[in-house]
């Protein structure tokens, strides 16, 4: 029996924080760089969530050019992919050199979706929330009675 052969797929997930000093427009480029590193070592990218702006639970310190920089917020994104252990070592090297990556974590996982809650809920919107206001207005615009009547009619029918 060949012990070097692995039949089980090796699924990894990379979670990463990008520094909050980046502007919203620079995020696709920075996350694209991370994705590029993964594409180099992986055959198959299974799932991905683009970085979203979140509040960190505590201050994270990153040393940039012998100076400590402290961050309370960051852009958090993740990518799930199929890879090999050698590739992971290569990826780690790349991530350590990337100045836009505040912190990262690579874990072994399974191919299936592991989320119980539907979406990452720590999301914070950087601009004032216009969408929420519009949604609220729409909600008030539709009369509740009408909806209720329809529901009752459907039940009767």
């Amino acid at each position, binding site marked *: 029996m060949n012990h070097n052969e692995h039949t089980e797929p090796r699924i990894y997930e990379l979670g990463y*924080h990008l520094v909050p000093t980046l502007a919203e427009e620079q995020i696709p480029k920075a996350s694209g760089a991370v994705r590029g590193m993964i594409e180099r070592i992986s055959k198959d990218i299974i799932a991905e969530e683009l970085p979203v702006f979140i509040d960190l639970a505590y201050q*994270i310190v990153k040393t940039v050019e012998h100076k400590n920089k402290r961050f309370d917020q960051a852009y958090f994104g993740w990518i799930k992919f199929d890879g090999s252990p050698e590739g992971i070592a290569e990826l780690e090297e790349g991530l350590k050199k990337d100045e836009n990556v505040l912190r990262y974590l690579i*874990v072994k996982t399974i191919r*299936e979706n*592991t989320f*119980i*809650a539907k979406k*990452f809920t720590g999301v914070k919107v950087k601009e004032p929330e216009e969408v929420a206001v519009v949604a609220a207005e729409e909600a008030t615009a539709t009369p509740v009675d009408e909806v209720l009547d329809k529901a009752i009619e459907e039940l009767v029918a």
Partner: protein
Amino acid sequence: MKKNTQCYFTTNNVKQIDYKDVDILKKFLNPHARMIAGERTGVCSKHQRQLASAVKRARFMGLLPFVAK
């Protein structure tokens, strides 16, 4: 406090506990952000071990605090 008798993760058929599921993980932390014993929450040993790793990963990534208050 009433003890739960059934494991939350087993009943929901969870294969692997995700460290990004912060809202779920928070249910198993006390107000000081310490993990609650599986005996108290009813989580089975298998999932309690997974939960512990998930909480620690979430802490490292700044999604959960190490200490609160």
